[in-house]
Each structure stands twice: as C-alpha cells, then as structure tokens.
C-alpha cells in the first residue's frame, strides 16, 4: 500500500476517534445543555448554603437560567456569598428571591429564583436581597424532637 493509502486510513482512524470524543461530549455529557451566550453576574448572601457547589444550576420555574460561579464567606456578615452568572436574555425584577433547593429528595442542590413584582430589573453586579438558606437536616431533626418534647410536656 502506498503512502497515500496509509495516510488516508490513518485519517479515517483519527476521524473515528474524534467523532467518538465529540459523541461522548455532546450526546453523553452536558456540554450542549447550557449555551455560552452573553451572561451577567449577580450575587446573593445566604445564612447557610448547605451542599451548594460551584457550577450548580440556577433555575427559575424549573428551567435552568444560569450557573453558580463562585462561593465565598463574607468576612463581615459571616454569611455565604454566592456569585452566579445568568443568561443575558432573561431579566429578573429587583425584588426576586433566591432559595437553595434540592433536586429530588437526596440530589444535588441548586438555586431557585422566584421573580417579584418590581418594575426595575437586576443588572450586572446587583445583589438579591431576599434569600432563603438551605435546609439542614440536623436542624430539622432537632426542631422535630423539640416539638415532640413540647407536645409531651403540654399533655401532662
């Protein structure tokens, strides 16, 4: 087989390999799910971010509209400061509230945005004022036990 033939076959092999990688990236993974269009950044402060991770989705009405880009501790207020990038096509009113929700019962955590009713929209660098922290299981259990004890004491 001449050199041209070998080079062609190797080209086919490399093409198949690259197609395999592309298939894995697009069809098997989440590359195409969030478009890399223009985005704007906003921040929000939570008392407890729970298990929120960087690159967690930001959803409104269940539809992904952005990603969490940074999580840091605010040294003045000791709250967790979460920075997120939102899709530039979607504008939220300034009195939007942010909650940390869990996908399913034991799944990954994400930020849910509920729009308010204000006329003005959030711009790049703005902060969401109304936030609700993540549900911490231990606090929930403690609350439940305390309520049970209070009920028991009342009956006596």
């Amino acid at each position, binding site marked *: 087989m001449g*050199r041209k033939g*070998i*080079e062609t*076959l*190797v080209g*086919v*092999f*490399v093409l*198949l*390999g*690259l*197609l*395999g*990688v592309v*298939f*894995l*990236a697009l*069809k*098997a*993974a*989440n*590359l195409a*799910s969030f478009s890399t269009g223009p985005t704007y950044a906003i921040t929000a402060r939570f008392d407890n971010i729970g298990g929120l*991770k960087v690159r967690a989705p930001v959803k409104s009405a269940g539809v992904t509209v952005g990603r969490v880009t940074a999580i840091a501790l605010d040294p003045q207020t000791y709250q967790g400061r979460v920075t997120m990038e939102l899709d530039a096509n979607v504008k939220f009113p300034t009195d939007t509230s942010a909650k940390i929700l869990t996908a399913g019962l034991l799944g990954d955590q994400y930020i849910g945005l509920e729009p308010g009713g204000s006329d003005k929209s959030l711009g790049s660098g703005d902060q969401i004022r109304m936030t609700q922290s993540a549900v911490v299981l231990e606090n929930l259990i403690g609350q439940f036990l305390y309520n049970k004890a209070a009920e028991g004491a009342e009956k006596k």
Partner: protein
Amino acid sequence: MTASNLLPALGRRAINLLQRLGHSAFFLLDLVRNTPTALRRFYLVIAQVHAIGNYSLVIIAASGLAVGFVLALQGYYTLSRYGAAESLGLLVALSLVRELGPVVTGLLFAGRAGTSLTAEIGLMKAGEQLAAMEMMAVDPKSRVLAPRFVAGAISMPLLAAIFSAVGIMGGYVVGVLMIGIDPGAFWSQMQSGVDVWDDVGNGIIKSVVFGVACTFIALYQGYEAEATPEGVSQATTRTVVISSLAVLGLDFVLTALMFSTPR
C-alpha cells in the same frame, strides 16, 4: 538453595530491579527528548499510527460493544431492585467514560499493540538492524523508537473514545431496544449526570497516561530484549504483564487524584 544463599540472591535481584528501573527512566527521557524530531518526520509517525491504531480498531470496537451489552444487562438487574432502572444510561456512560474505557482499552492495547511493538523492536535487535543503524550514524531512538512512542500516545485516547462511544451505543441497544427502558430517560439521565470536563475529560487524560506508559514499556522491553528468539518471546510476555500492572496501578492513582470526594 541454602539459607545463606537466599538472602544475597534476594538482595541481588532487588538491586537489579532498581538498576533496570533507573535504566528505563533514562530510556523514557530519551524517548521524550527525541519526540520533536519524530514530529518533524511526521510520515514516520503516521505509518506507526496505522500499524498501532488502525489494526487495533476491530478488537477495540468489538470489545467496546460487548462490554456495553454486559454493563447494560448486569446494571439493569441491580438497578431494577431499587426502582432506578431509568438511570441505566447514566450507569453505563459513567462506568465506561470514567473507568472501563481507558482501562480496558489500555489492557487490550498492551496486549495487541504492545506485544507487536516489543516483538518488532526485539527482532530488529536480534537481526542487528539497530546496531547497523548506529554504525550509519542514524540514531535508532529517534528514527525507530520515538515515532512509535508518539504514535502510541496519539492512538490510545482515540481508541479509548471509540471504546466508550461504541459501549454506550451497545448499552442503548440492550437497554432500550431489548429490555425496553424509555429512550428519553436513558439519554436525558446520562446527559444530566455526565460532566464533559470532570468525566469525559478525565477519562481522556487517563487514556493518554496509559498510552504513554504502555508504549514506553513495550519499547523498553523490546530494546532490552535478549537477541535470541527465546529472549524476544520472554520480552513480549514481560511487556503484557508489566503494562497491565502499570495500567491498573496508574488507574488507582489517577482515580484517587481525579475523583476523590468533592470539596
């Protein structure tokens, strides 16, 4: 062997092992040093990619398909016990892309391409071709060994990607077409659970590392083989054993580095 002979013999073997290890490290350094020269003579690299990669396509694709089939069958059995049969796509994809793709391809590569490399270099050494090249002031490391090294490093990630892709399609055939899982759930669970950079990217990094390791071991064993038929056959066996152990050991190290508990 008397007791007084055993300990010195053990010591000698240990020192020999260390000496061979050091010698192989210098060999690897030479290969890496000659890589730019090999890249300049790209037609040599292409011929080697043809010999190493193209001829491995059939076994890699067939094995990938078979592994995908089996993963889907066995995975379905366990997942259905917990009512999570819809996650079969996620199970098959993660298993293949993170672990089985690079590792099984590495083992098959060591067996198929590694042995052929070792045998070829060993026979070149036995037929005194390498010595003849040195006499002509042609460095055999840069003309013969480095192109094969580069070709192995290029072929492995491509083969691993083909293995994983074919395996996922095999899993689809068994899971959706044969068992009857909903295709929408199959693909959507997979797409939401497999991360491009963390999973697919790390799998590709693993396959590059395995490719470098297997090719280097194969070339070293061939280069250091005894110049006799038995020597070449022993070198071929050593290549498969050492490459397989290296792939599995490196897999553990890389997995611990890449997939440890998230912060």
